[in-house]
């Protein structure tokens, strides 16, 4: 190439062409440089003239937007937990009801959104009395920001909708495999529009009676509000339905009906863990309390880790197998349990809470099995029982160093939360026990009444032949896997009339 260049330079025409070309390039480059310098001088001069004016936005003006963004990011993470629930439940279910599981989660989500817009949010977060709110029906008369949070009202609504949806989905977990789709729609209205918001109002609503006790009941992110409520309702559903046909319980010489896809279940579990990073840290409702956000995120992580390890170890001692189902339920148990105390405990406290929760979860599964209640995915043990434990753990493990998060940072003005193990006496523990017992009891009674009422109208459970052949084929028109194997080949669209005689 160089040789060719040198050869070319020996010819006069090429030489002239080369220097003309080079000269043109240089003139162009100089022109661009001059333009850049000129512009810089011009703009620099103008900017200099404004130097003394105050900036358009002061730092304080950014607090609400930043907090709102944080709450929205957290809301999106919590929403993604739906994907986790779908996969976990589908994996632990049998092939024949997989479409049903997926459809219940999707349609529950859609219904919950509309119901929470119409009445749910009003019952839960509207002003009212200690028992129920009645403001913001259909999100009417909404202010710019919610309460003292400084978070945009509708962003706060999205966050709380995602929570309500989680509670509603937990309920379906224990009812997999025999609930009719219509029955699911009916009880979901009761859960999303009535039971969850009203109970939630007592704890998180303005003036809720549990939140305004002398020593307020503390549930940071919803061990009671979301998980105990969801888990206990799941229990009432499973009791009203009865077990799946052919389910033999351990005391009768049987065991769990095996799920159909461990990969899907395991990935779903991890997606739930990921979503929990919105669930717990997002419940600060404030990015300004950044130390709180960090503490909550760390405690959430550690409780999940401890839950997984204790769960797997506990099962290994029992069965000499590294059990995947209990490992998943173990970290979920840890996550559920740390949900209430995550803001007030130390990292070591979180590890102990997570580990104990995993053992409680395994034992609770045994007890539920002993009572011959068929809970295909362990929702009652994980969410119901570990939710109760996590709530009580606030009264034991709270360090006394932390109060509540505020819009501009950690807020100690209303006092700190101290548990029994940190010299706080039994005040907080008693409040936790009262709150947990009342919620568990009332939700149990209300849930049984609702589920048996729906069951009484023959809408809750599918007929036996549908259950045996699979809800998917009968209620949703086809199976989850390889539908084309049945459809193509000899299967052609019925509307073409070609296959009618078959």
């Amino acid at each position, binding site marked *: 190439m160089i040789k060719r260049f040198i050869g070319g330079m020996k010819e006069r025409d090429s030489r002239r062409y080369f220097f003309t070309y080079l000269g043109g390039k240089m003139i162009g480059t100089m022109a661009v440089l001059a333009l850049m310098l000129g512009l810089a001088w011009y703009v620099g001069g103008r900017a200099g003239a404004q130097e003394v004016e105050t900036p358009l936005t002061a730092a304080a003006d950014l607090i609400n937007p930043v907090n709102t963004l944080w709450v929205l990011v957290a809301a999106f993470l919590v929403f993604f937990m739906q994907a986790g629930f779908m996969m976990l439940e589908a994996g632990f279910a049998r092939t024949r009801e997989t479409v049903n599981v997926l459809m219940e989660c999707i349609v529950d989500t859609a219904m919950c959104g509309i119901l929470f817009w119409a009445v749910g949010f009003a019952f839960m977060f509207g002003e009212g009395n200690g028992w129920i709110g009645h403001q913001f029906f259909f999100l009417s008369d909404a202010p710019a920001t919610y309460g003292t949070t400084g978070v945009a009202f509708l962003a706060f609504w999205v966050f709380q909708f995602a929570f309500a949806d989680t509670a509603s989905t937990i309920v379906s977990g224990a009812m997999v495999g025999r609930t009719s789709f219509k029955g699911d729609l009916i009880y979901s209205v009761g859960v999303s529009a009535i039971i969850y918001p009203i109970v939630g109002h007592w704890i998180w609503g303005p003036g809720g009676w549990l939140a305004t006790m002398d020593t307020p009941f503390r549930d940071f992110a919803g061990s009671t509000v979301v998980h105990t409520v969801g888990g206990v309702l799941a229990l009432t559903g499973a009791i009203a339905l009865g077990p799946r046909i*052919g389910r033999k319980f351990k005391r009768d010489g049987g065991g769990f009906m095996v799920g159909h896809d461990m990969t899907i279940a395991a990935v779903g579990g991890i997606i739930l863990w990921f979503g929990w990073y919105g669930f717990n840290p997002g419940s600060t409702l404030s990015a300004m309390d950044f130390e709180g956000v960090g503490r909550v995120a760390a405690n959430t992580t550690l409780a999940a880790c401890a839950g997984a390890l204790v769960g797997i170890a506990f099962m290994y001692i029992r069965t000499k197998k590294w059990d995947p189902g209990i490992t998943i339920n173990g970290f979920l148990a840890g996550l559920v349990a740390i949900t209430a105390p995550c803001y007030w405990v130390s990292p070591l406290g979180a590890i102990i809470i997570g580990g104990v929760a995993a053992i409680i979860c395994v034992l609770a599964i045994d007890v539920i099995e002993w009572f011959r209640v068929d809970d295909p995915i362990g929702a009652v043990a994980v969410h119901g029982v570990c939710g109760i434990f996590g709530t009580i753990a606030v009264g034991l493990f709270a360090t006394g160093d932390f109060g509540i998060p505020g819009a501009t940072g950690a807020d100690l003005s209303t006092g700190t939360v101290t548990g029994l193990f940190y010299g706080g006496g039994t005040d907080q523990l008693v409040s936790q026990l009262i709150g947990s017992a009342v919620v568990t009891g009332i939700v149990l009674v209300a849930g049984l009444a609702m589920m048996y009422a729906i069951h009484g109208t023959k809408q809750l459970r599918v007929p036996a032949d549908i259950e045996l052949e699979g809800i998917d084929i009968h209620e949703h028109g086809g199976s989850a896997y390889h539908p084309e194997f*049945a459809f193509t080949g000899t299967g052609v669209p019925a509307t073409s009339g070609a296959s009618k005689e078959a």
Partner: protein
Amino acid sequence: MLKLVTAILKPHKFDDVKEALKKDGITGLTVTEVKGFGRQGGKTETFRGSEYTVELLPKIKLELIVDEAQVAKAIETITAAGQTGKIGDGKIWVLGVDELVRIRTSETGVEAI
């Protein structure tokens, strides 16, 4: 003389049939998930709103090899345990087996069952 007994069953009946056969002393069987149609054909399913006539329904194919003397008993057991009385309960058929060898030991005939 050895016989191959093949049965097509409703999937949810398989466990009952298996337990009943085990009670009869059957020491092994082979199972395949299959799809097919018989007189039950013509079920309508939907996919994204379009209706399809599905001619293939999921079934379980169960195969076991027994001595000729046990064939009647095996058929009776499978029929009793696999029956729902509704259309689609499946079929049983029996074929002769020319040779049977247990791979591990090279045993043949009745010994290899």
